[in-house]
């Protein structure tokens, strides 16, 4: 596509964001992990791109794709921010099919001229080129959960497979998921209260899946299951997950996702608790 590359090169100077990568799946997979709302806010700095999705002012997901994942990554301004339709972006990124034949890669070049301009995608696979022009929108403010590591009460690192099964079998008739983390038994317990009764799932502190466990005092928090369920998308893709709660009961789930080239990206979920439970009850 010599014509196309030339065209791109001439216009390079006016772009405030240019990113290229040889395998579009290294980018699209991480975005799929946070695709539970139509719209996303993209925030690019020289370190990489952060894509944020929110729901009901109660849950926020952030996907971080570091600059190293891209073969070329240039941000001409301090930071570039825009809002985009994530569903359309994902459809465009996977235009050549979601499951390509092994050994074939779709290359991507992504350019953005700045405020009010469309996001341009140039995708190429086997000599076929697709050009996408996606209109961007005015960014709206994103939530600040003020989740600060000094306020963290408990922190667990699990291998994702341990949580994957639990999440896929959650009793969806339960409105909430109750998370008990305590320095003594049951250590880490997931409970649901559904139509068919309640169920509890305990992870002992010393099981193989548990990579680390820190908890100073018992905490019981409830989260809306409907808000947590979308995080399963990230869980399925990840190899490790860090679960943290702070003194207000806010939950942070951090998923570590390895791409096809072995590079690591992160997806964060923040969720606010459903209601407070007095500690005496637990």
């Amino acid at each position: 596509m010599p014509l196309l590359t030339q065209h791109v090169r001439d216009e390079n100077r006016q772009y405030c964001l240019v990113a290229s990568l040889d395998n579009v799946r290294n980018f699209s997979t991480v975005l799929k992990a946070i695709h539970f709302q139509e719209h996303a806010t993209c925030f690019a700095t020289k370190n990489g791109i952060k894509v944020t999705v929110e729901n009901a002012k109660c849950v926020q997901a952030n996907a971080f794709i570091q600059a190293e994942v891209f073969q070329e990554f240039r941000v001409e301004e301090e930071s570039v921010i825009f809002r985009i339709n994530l569903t359309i972006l994902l459809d465009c990124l996977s235009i050549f099919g979601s499951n390509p034949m092994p050994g074939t890669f779709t290359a991507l070049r992504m350019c953005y001229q700045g405020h009010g301009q469309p996001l341009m995608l140039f995708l190429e696979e086997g000599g076929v080129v697709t050009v996408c022009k996606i209109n961007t929108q005015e960014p709206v403010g994103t939530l600040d959960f003020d989740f600060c590591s000094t306020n963290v009460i408990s922190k667990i690192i699990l291998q994702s497979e341990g949580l994957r099964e639990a999440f896929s079998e959650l009793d969806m008739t339960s409105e909430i998921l109750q998370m008990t983390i305590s320095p003594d038994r049951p250590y880490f317990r997931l409970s649901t209260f559904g139509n068919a009764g309640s169920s509890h799932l305990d992870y002992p502190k010393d099981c193989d899946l548990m990579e680390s466990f820190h908890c100073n005092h018992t905490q019981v928090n409830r989260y809306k299951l409907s808000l947590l369920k979308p995080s399963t998308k990230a869980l399925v893709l990840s190899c490790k997950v860090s679960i943290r709660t702070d003194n207000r009961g806010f939950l942070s789930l951090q998923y570590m996702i390895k791409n096809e080239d072995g590079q690591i990206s992160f997806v964060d979920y923040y969720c606010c608790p459903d209601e407070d439970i007095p500690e005496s009850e637990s």
Partner: protein
Amino acid sequence: MKFRAKIVDAACLNHFTRVSNMIAKLARTCTLRISPEKLNFILWDRQPSGGASTWCELEQENFFSEFQMEGVSAENNVIYLELTSENLSRALKTAQNARTLKIKLTNKHFPCLTVSIELLSVSNSSRIVTHDIPIKVIPRKLWKDLQEPSVPDADVSIYLPVLKTMKSVLEKMKNISNHLVIEANLNGELNLKVETELVCVTTHFRDLGNPPLASDDASLDRDPAEMVAVLVDIRKLLPFLAGQQVNPTKALCNVVAGRMVHLDVLHEDVSLQCFIPALALA
């Protein structure tokens, strides 16, 4: 009216099964046209606005070892039947590893296409499975609706790209819009384009090659790079591509600017033609 045919060759039987599977994927009901030389499966999408139609043509001698037919009269030596395409493909499912397959027009309380399959068995005793597929004989006064659509001289005739790539591109485009612009020129370039208020996606195929046009004089005074466009409903085109199980021997796309797209696909000795009328260009 008589019809009786027999397949004994395993390869022919497999091929015939594949054709009927493809037909079943394309439409719920089909018209079977039987003439002394050919079998045609005709698929009509009956819509007042002028639906798409697909013609599948098989030379009878490439499939059948015996083939006898007698049409309505000596001068109109053809039979038109209507049947549910899935019934035929389901009947042929039993015919895998069959020794022979016989198809016969019968009247058992109601008109039927009787498919009898002689199965191989370990012992000498032969087993015969018989399917009676209910049919409707189409009276002569309706034949005129079932004539092969005539193709006006194409403005551009171009070979199609790998159908799998084209299919996955169109599947994603369908999520964006149902209105597809097909553009092609005499330089072997084909563009597929969808556009909405939010996004514009164009896939460019190059170096596809053009077969020589029927009317040479028309191509002489035309710029080969000039694009000829037609707007079609993506949902009419997709089933046709989805029905293709293997890559065809030849796949051709004829564009009549603003009027229709004619796809002509040849699988060894089965010819498949699809006529898609244009939507009014916006």
